[in-house]
């Protein structure tokens, strides 16, 4: 089998009379095959091991609290009573909001780069986008904590608070908002962080639109806006959903930047200007100092929940990408 596979590969292969040569090539190929296989299997085993150890580690908390773990927002390490509703909701809201902010921007950047950008600037804009992806998340966190948070507090939260009349809708909307470190600003930071990923993939996708399709559209007298909105975006729609899901996966798991800016309150958020927490930020904050077994187990169970959420997201992305190819 292995010999058959290599036979047409080299130009000398058909005339080779030295059987030792063939068998050595075949043996090397078999080793190569085995190495590749074991690399792939190792990855699968790591993933399975990770999942199993998360289940084992989180089982005491999950079995002890049952469904309450998902619906209660009590997080009391003193009484060893844990409910993850706050972090779970915080994770979903921040991820969703960040996509809401990042998606239009990413489309704008990608369309500009592909359709309108002069070649001389294109390189620089593309490089800036890539640079954005290379900045460590802790830098975003510091920027959020020291720059965005205070600015947001002074220029948004405080004026809104002053404008809100007692009992008005605005006051209810603001909830307990008391600082610039809240779910909204965390989402803004997340949006900046996922933006380069989505924008880059979008650009690749737009470039994959066949030239004749675009030129045909222009030839029919379409305006650039019509070409982009009616021809190009629909053409890449399904793959684009996959790209969005990948960005969403990153937003769900981002830890450091969020920890700095979200305010780290385990309570169930009542407003998007309320401080909250995400699954990843809770684990990062508490794992090192968790001393009771139930606390550790509850944190591992949180990890399992995040695993499940991320897996679902990626599975949906796969499904959509798969459909596109078929």
């Amino acid at each position, binding site marked *: 089998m292995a010999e058959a596979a290599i036979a047409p590969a080299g130009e000398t292969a058909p005339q080779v009379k030295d059987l030792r040569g063939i068998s050595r090539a075949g043996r090397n190929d078999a080793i190569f095959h085995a190495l590749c296989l074991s690399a792939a299997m190792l990855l699968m085993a790591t993933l399975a091991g990770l999942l199993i150890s998360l289940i084992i580690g989180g089982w005491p908390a999950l079995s002890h609290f049952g469904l309450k773990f998902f619906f209660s927002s*009590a*997080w*009391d*390490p*003193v*009484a060893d009573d844990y409910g993850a509703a706050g972090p779970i909701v915080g994770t979903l809201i921040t991820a969703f909001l960040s996509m809401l902010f990042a998606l239009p921007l990413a489309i704008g950047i990608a369309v500009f780069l592909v359709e309108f950008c002069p070649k001389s600037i294109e390189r620089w804009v593309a490089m800036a986008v890539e640079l954005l992806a290379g900045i460590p998340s802790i830098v975003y966190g510091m920027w959020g*904590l*020291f720059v965005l*948070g*205070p600015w947001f*507090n002074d220029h948004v939260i405080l004026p809104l608070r002053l404008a809100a009349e007692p009992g008005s809708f605005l006051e209810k909307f603001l909830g307990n908002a*008391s*600082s*610039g*470190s809240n779910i909204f600003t965390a989402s803004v930071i997340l949006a900046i962080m996922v933006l380069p990923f989505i924008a880059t993939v979008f650009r690749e996708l737009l470039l994959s639109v066949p030239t004749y399709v675009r030129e045909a559209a222009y030839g029919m007298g379409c305006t650039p806006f019509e070409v982009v909105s009616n021809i190009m975006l629909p053409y890449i729609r399904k793959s684009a959903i996959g790209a969005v899901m990948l960005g969403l996966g990153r937003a769900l798991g981002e830890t450091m930047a969020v*920890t*700095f800016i979200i*305010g*780290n*309150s*385990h309570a169930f958020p009542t407003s998007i200007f309320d*401080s909250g*927490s995400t699954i990843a*930020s809770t684990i*990062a*904050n*508490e*794992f*090192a*100092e*968790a*001393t009771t077994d139930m606390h*550790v187990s509850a944190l591992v169970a949180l990890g399992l929940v995040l695993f499940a959420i991320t897996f679902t997201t990626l599975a949906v992305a796969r499904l959509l990408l798969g459909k596109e190819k078929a």
Partner: protein
Amino acid sequence: MFRKFAYAFGAAAVVAGVVGIAKADNFTGAGATFPAPVYSAWAQAYHGATGNELNYQAIGSGGGIRQIKAKTVDFGASDKPLQPAELNAAGLLQFPTVIGGIVPIVNIPGVTAGKLRLSGPVLGDLFLGKIRRWDDAAIARLNPGVKLPSLPVTVVHRADGSGTSFIFTSYLSAVNRDWAARVGANDSVNWPTGLGGKGNDGVAAFVKQTSGSIGYVEYIYARKDNVAWTYVENKAHQYPNPDPVSFAAAAANAPWGRAPGNYVLLIDEPGAKAWPISGATFLLMYKNPGNAQKAAEVLKFVDWSYKNGDAAAGKLDYVPLPLSVKNMIRKQWLQITAGGKPVYVSK
């Protein structure tokens, strides 16, 4: 190509072996982040003096306790002392190394450092969310002559589990009955109100940004510029300055020697000069260590640091232990034995 790999592996193995032999006198510890700067300062000086190297991983107190119980390190370090029962169950010895203090900080327009006076019950009510505005009568009573605005109180606490939080919540539990009943003391608790900053820096940043906020930080962070620390009333109804002198006064009055397992919290200690929110940080070691030689190395290092490390600790704003406490602990080390003999005897 495979041959090249084989050579590379062989070379790597030889290098690893040589390094392994060269570093035979290394010992490892893991745990609390709060004393990590002083441990590394001590370790560096100790390395210079003896050539032996400490590898300390500041992974947090919880991690330190887990690591020593798993016997992957030669000592564990924790800001939160273990209860005597837990120590005995695990066969561990626990002893303090240095002392630190925790100081409330506020951001109230017109209130500068050292201007505001707070008492334990008031501090507890603030962190419980029961006192909602700064012009509350309970605060005004402690601060005649200080003009306090009608600003809402924003509580800032540590988001990460921390020995600092443990000491602070232990203090609130000791002096505020409602806090003890509703919240309690731990590395991380179910905070009734407020927002959480990551680390001392995070808390200080939130307090600086938020008008009307109150938080708590380790002493060194309260000493930095533009942070308004407050006085806290101690057991003798005095308001000592938060500084190494008052932390040392708290340590001097603590019931060392009478506390089983050295379980001593420097909380609300008697004495006119004692700062009420202080705490020691601890090392954990097995009484019957698996590796007697490594255990001896650790004790040698701590003994050396007790003797020579006070200046370095002071420079980093930690308070060294009183000499009487150090000598008491040196005697306790005789409990760490291998084959019935102490692994290390301090001279």
